[in-house]
């Protein structure tokens, strides 16, 4: 050890001596040289000790195939923006739920209780009030320094919690023609199967551009995104998420959030818009061009048998297995057959899932059929376990099935009547999605 009086501080220049001189044979010199050079030579051939990519079938965050180089570049730009974390200096808040898109949709998958959205409102004299004077309909339960977060007002009559969904494959769902959805709808249950899907019609925002083939009613368009199908297209969904989830203003929504419960227009001091339209568009493009969630073990006999059970007990009455996209400006998305297991319509799910909350004008017990694709990878983005149903209350597939009531009550009863092996086959099938 050194014999000076210093300790390990910056005062110890120069470095203590490592190297007492001793003669070694020349061959040792070459050995040492070799030891030094080998790692350098390994650099170009080091794939075996560098982490390899996970199998494509195990991840959601990949682009669709056959994008052009320009489209791929925009997809990557959108990916970067999707992952961008906003700080207070970037305009986050002043009240917010999460600081990035990615934090709610980790790996583009389903979310976690940490970032569930809470919405509330009040039903009085048969009129639904989304309570904007109290910060409704969406609660921003977090706030930047110096600002108070929102609270659910005590006189709210309906409160719901919404688990963030996976965002893969949404570009395809956006392209399913209105005509197809209306053909699947059966509002009066004319076929008598107990299932009566209803299209959600939504007032479009100012910036909305209808797509060819849209079928509006009185200026309202079919909503297809969100747990209650409250957003017509991905642009509306993304603009709303920037504003209501992160408190980030854009060229589409220029006014900042504030907490009315704190009084005054108490917004943050970052100039608006906090992101330009080009950023929003790149994120929309990124989501549009995410691949369809991959299948695993699709040819396994147990899985195939489970798929038959799925149809036999009429899960497919709402979770429509096959849809067809319409025309698109992105060739890779146009006119292709997809397997999302949804009809994008609203269904009454029974009293147990009724949170007495109304989003647009639907009955409070109605929920849009969620796509089942990607279900088997849910746990990989939800922290190693699943949080299923609209609020994540179900920890397993079986729990989720047993929570289906209302229009799905007959299918639930049929599931309960299955033999253990058939139930297992059905679960294997769902895990393969």
């Amino acid at each position, binding site marked *: 050890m050194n014999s000076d009086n210093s*300790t*390990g501080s*910056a005062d110890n220049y120069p470095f203590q001596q490592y190297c007492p001189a001793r003669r070694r044979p020349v061959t040792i010199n070459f050995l040492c040289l070799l030891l030094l050079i080998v*790692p350098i030579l390994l*650099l170009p051939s080091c794939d075996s000790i*560098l*982490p390899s990519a996970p199998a494509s079938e195990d991840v959601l965050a990949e682009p669709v195939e056959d994008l052009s180089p320009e489209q791929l570049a925009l997809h990557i730009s959108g990916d970067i923006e999707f992952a961008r974390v906003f700080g207070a*200096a970037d305009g986050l808040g002043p009240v917010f739920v999460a600081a990035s898109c990615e934090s709610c949709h980790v790996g583009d998958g389903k979310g976690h209780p940490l970032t569930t959205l809470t919405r509330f409102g009040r039903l009085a004299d048969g009129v639904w009030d989304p309570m904007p004077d109290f910060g409704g309909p969406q609660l921003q339960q977090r706030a930047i320094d110096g600002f108070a977060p929102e609270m659910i007002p005590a006189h709210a009559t309906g409160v719901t919690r919404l688990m963030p969904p996976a965002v893969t494959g949404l570009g395809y769902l956006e392209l399913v023609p209105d005509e197809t959805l209306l053909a699947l709808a059966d509002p009066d249950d004319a076929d008598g199967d107990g299932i009566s899907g209803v299209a959600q019609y939504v007032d479009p925002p100012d910036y909305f551009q209808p797509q060819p083939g849209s079928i509006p009613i009185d200026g309202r368009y079919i909503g297809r995104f969100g747990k209650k199908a409250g957003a017509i297209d991905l642009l509306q969904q993304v603009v709303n998420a920037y504003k209501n989830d992160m408190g980030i203003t854009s060229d589409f929504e220029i006014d900042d959030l504030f907490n009315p419960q704190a009084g005054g227009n108490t917004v943050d001091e970052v100039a608006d818009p906090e992101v330009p339209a080009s950023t929003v568009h790149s994120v929309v493009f990124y989501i549009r061009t995410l691949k369809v969630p991959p299948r695993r073990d699709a040819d396994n006999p147990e899985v195939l048998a489970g798929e038959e059970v799925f149809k036999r007990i009429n899960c497919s009455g709402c979770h429509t297995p096959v849809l067809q996209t319409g025309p698109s400006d992105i060739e890779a998305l146009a006119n292709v057959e997809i397997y999302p297991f949804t009809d994008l319509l609203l269904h009454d799910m029974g009293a147990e899932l009724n949170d007495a909350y109304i989003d647009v004008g639907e009955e409070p017990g109605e929920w849009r059929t969620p796509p089942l694709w990607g279900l088997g990878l849910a746990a990989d983005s939800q922290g190693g376990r699943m949080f299923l149903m609209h609020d994540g209350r179900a920890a397993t597939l079986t729990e989720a099935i047993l929570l289906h009531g209302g229009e799905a009550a007959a299918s639930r009863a049929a599931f309960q009547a299955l033999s253990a092996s058939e139930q297992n086959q059905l679960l294997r099938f769902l895990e393969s999605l």
Partner: protein
Amino acid sequence: MNLKHLFVAILLTVVLPSYLLRAQDDSTTTLDAAYTRPFITNIGSSSTAIGGYLEGNTNYFAEDGISEGLSMELRRFNVFLFSTIGQRIRFLAELEFEHGTEEIALETAQLDLEIDPALVLRGGIVLVPIGANNVNHDSPRWEFIERPLVATEIIPSTLSEIGFGLNGNLAFDRWVLAYDAYLLNGLQNDVILNSEGRTWLQAGKSEELLAEDNNGEPAFSAKLALRQRDYGEVGLSFYRGVYNSFEREGEAIDDARSLSIFAIDVATEIEKARIHAEFAFNAIDIPANLDELYGDAQWGGYVEVTYPILESPLFGFENASLLAGLRLERIDYNVGSFAATGRNRGDEIDALAFSLSFRPSADAVIRANYSHHWITDLLGNPSIKRAGFQFGFASYF
């Protein structure tokens, strides 16, 4: 004109100007101030030294199968200036150019006034005495290119701040006891709600850190290091300060929130194996509504062993040596569990690194490193794996 008036006239026109000129070293005026500075007037009698170090690396990393390829960097070019001003006054400065000229920082500019070796007054831009790496981080001293994660992510090295305080060494028999204690401006607002989306003390080093305190509440840092000449050294250090701007124009706009860092570092040698270890624990006052998303407790640590596998003249370098090293480390940005699930909050990194380094002399090193990181996100999803090779050099000059 009477005699009295004559006397005043002579005084004003002859005597007083000549006196003033003598007072200004005869031939100079205030216009010569630039050239009457002591570093010029004391040429030949003062002791000033200029030095520094240079560090350059080549990096090749891959994360879950995606690599940006080979990349070369001049990571640091640091210039030191040291001067003794009289027998017991000394000045030290370090100007750092990082990644070329991407970041330029005055890392140190401190003046020491030695009352006694056991009592030195220090002021200026000082390296905060928290942990060992923060004050002992020069690249040529280490066999690993990357600093330990605990020293960059938990302790926000390099942390240098405006401040003043005391330090000193007490030596007795085979023991040395050293201490440092400073009042500082303290870390600032972006410790939370930053662009990392986590509690991250590095973000508290705002551009104004060296100019103005953001809240008027000084931070305090102190370290006690005990060294036994035969066995090694152990250091205990502490940092505490209010980080947020809780007042504006004298009006309270928020609660004052503080952060604390506790660190312990160890350096020893067993046979020829040099062992360094450092552990740090952070406690951060977080607004209740941000709990879980931003960690209120963090910790990290590392253990590193380097061993000289060859000490011999090599390639014409008389004092050459070849060393192998191993480093194990772990950090946790967000200690605790989720209230909703009872499961552990993630946001953790485990890491393993190997080094092989060649020292042609004690002050220069050529290094090859391999490191592998297992990165777990806040929710505890399957780890992201990041690994890569680095090859680089670093040398004092």
